[in-house]
């Protein structure tokens, strides 16, 4: 339309152009939203089905596996998963493994990180580099020898065997050292003058100050250990010691998959993670962002 008008209509032309621009911008926004919403649905629905199916009775599941509302809701699948599926045992083991690794690794990592950040000793930089270098090692290469070492120490099929290799982490030491380096030295000097030794300063002054970094690292350690699958699968041979991840995989092992039990089990495993995510979302996202920026 604007094209047919000659020179005096340039104002109209300008307005048309603006309208067109606004229209493309708006349609762009709509396309972006449509795309994001479609993807969001694809990410939510598998979990919604998991949750819904875990509350369905067997007949309800086999007739309407893709309905989102169980009719009528029942807890029988959970009962089956916990008893016949041994989910109760697996859950207890997972909690034990995750708690042990969480507490011990936080302590060992922070102790080493404090030392690398603040205590001066010959060879410190070299040793720190040696720690960092292990981050480059692919787990694929260390898996077999780690198993053989654990076997040599008599740790196969034991609680200690599952958790011991996770008691120290190069990433944790790196993360906490960065944090300790940024804490002003005056705070420590004051404590030193008050007569605190090395350990006292670390325990009473540095650890409380490093709380945000400790929480971030703690969340990652927990998530890692809770999801860990390959190592417990290899080191354990007795089902009484299996964590939930291995337990769920066992449901798959048989030819006939007990789907309702899988859904109940998966919901049970995911539940602590969802809670943790709700509480500590900022820490998780902050931690991941940090690792990306540093890299």
């Amino acid at each position, binding site marked *: 339309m604007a094209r047919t008008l000659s020179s005096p209509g340039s104002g109209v032309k300008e307005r048309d152009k603006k309208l067109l621009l606004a229209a493309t911008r708006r349609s762009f926004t709509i396309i972006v939203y449509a795309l*994001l919403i479609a993807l969001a649905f694809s990410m939510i629905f598998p979990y919604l*089905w998991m949750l819904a199916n875990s509350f369905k009775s067997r007949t309800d599941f086999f007739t309407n596996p893709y309905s989102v509302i169980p009719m009528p809701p029942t807890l029988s699948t959970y009962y089956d998963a916990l008893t016949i599926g041994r989910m109760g045992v697996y859950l207890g083991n997972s909690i034990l493994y995750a708690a042990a690794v969480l507490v011990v690794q936080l302590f060992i*990592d922070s102790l080493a990180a404090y*030392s690398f950040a603040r205590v001066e000793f010959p060879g410190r930089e070299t040793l720190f580099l040696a720690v960092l270098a292990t981050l480059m090692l692919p787990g694929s290469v260390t898996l077999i*020898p*780690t198993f053989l*070492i654990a076997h040599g120490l008599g740790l196969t099929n034991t609680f200690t065997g599952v958790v011991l290799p996770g008691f120290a982490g190069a990433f944790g030491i790196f993360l906490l050292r960065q944090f300790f380096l940024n804490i002003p030295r005056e705070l420590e000097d004051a404590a030193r003058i008050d007569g605190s030794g090395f350990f006292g300063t670390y325990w009473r002054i540095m650890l409380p100050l490093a709380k945000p970094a400790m929480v971030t690292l703690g969340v990652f350690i927990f998530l890692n250990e809770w999801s860990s699958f390959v190592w417990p699968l290899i080191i354990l041979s007795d089902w009484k010691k299996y964590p939930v991840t291995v337990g769920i995989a066992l449901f798959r092992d048989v030819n006939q998959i007990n789907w309702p039990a899988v859904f109940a089990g998966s919901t049970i495993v995911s539940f602590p993670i969802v809670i943790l995510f709700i509480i500590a979302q900022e820490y998780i996202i902050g931690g991941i962002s940090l*690792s990306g920026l540093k890299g």
Partner: protein
Amino acid sequence: MTTLAQPSQPLQSRASRQRELWRRLKKTWPGYLFISPAGLLITVFSYVAIIFSLYISFHQYDIISEARPFEGLENYARALNDKLVRISFRNTFVYVAVIVPSITVISLLLAVLGNQVRRGRALFRTIFFIPTITPIVVTSMLWVWLYEPTGGINRLLQMINIEGPNWLFDPSTALPAIMIMTIWGAVGYYMIIFLAGLAEIPEVFYEAAKVDGAGRWHTFWKITIPLLRNSLIFAFVTLTIAAFQVFTQAFIMTQGGPMNSTQTVQMVVYHYAFQRFQMGYASAISWLLFGVIFFFSALQLKLFMSRELY
């Protein structure tokens, strides 16, 4: 004590040298003590482990028999001629070549697009993140169910009149099925990495581009991509290293089948090491994988570092 500062002093007695050593040790021993638990664990489970792994890769080594003869490069030669190993390397290469660029591009787009919408930004971020924090065992199981012949995926395809395949039981679709699931599960994580990178780009660059009349597309290529360089390198390299070691998805969803179409190198390492107890041979295969990973990481870093992007 006053002569201690001059180490070349010949008259310095042995006793005072010892005293000096003792004095320094007294100041520094907490340092060694504090790193010793972590140091011991890392030494055993990383350094001793890797040397041990290399050692047994040259031997015939299983847990049961006591005889562990040296074999030189025998294991490596055998691996290169092993059909299963070859298939697994081919599958793994295909897997890496597809998922690494896919995840990088999709998560980058998600981050850039997600940054442009005003409402629901935090909500999208949270939702995309859910698959990332769920244990991979759980997501794998869920997708086994979704990939059933009459499962969720095929029902969705039916809506647009496509007859879906029997995903996990057809050799031509099993590996793509695993790749789709992995991409779906990983984009949320790398989106966070890119969002953090985007937040670091100063707003002035975009304002300047706007003043210059640069379009959306132009701004994306000339400003966003070059300034996201660090995040891109990080994503690409870490993704490649992780993708080469893919195991759990294949182990749970297909167990390497059908017809070895989803055998990955790590699956084969597991098979020889923990099902046939040929630890030496399996270690040799894992070293071949390490070599490949090392080569590609070094190559990527070299390419990224040498190219001047801005």
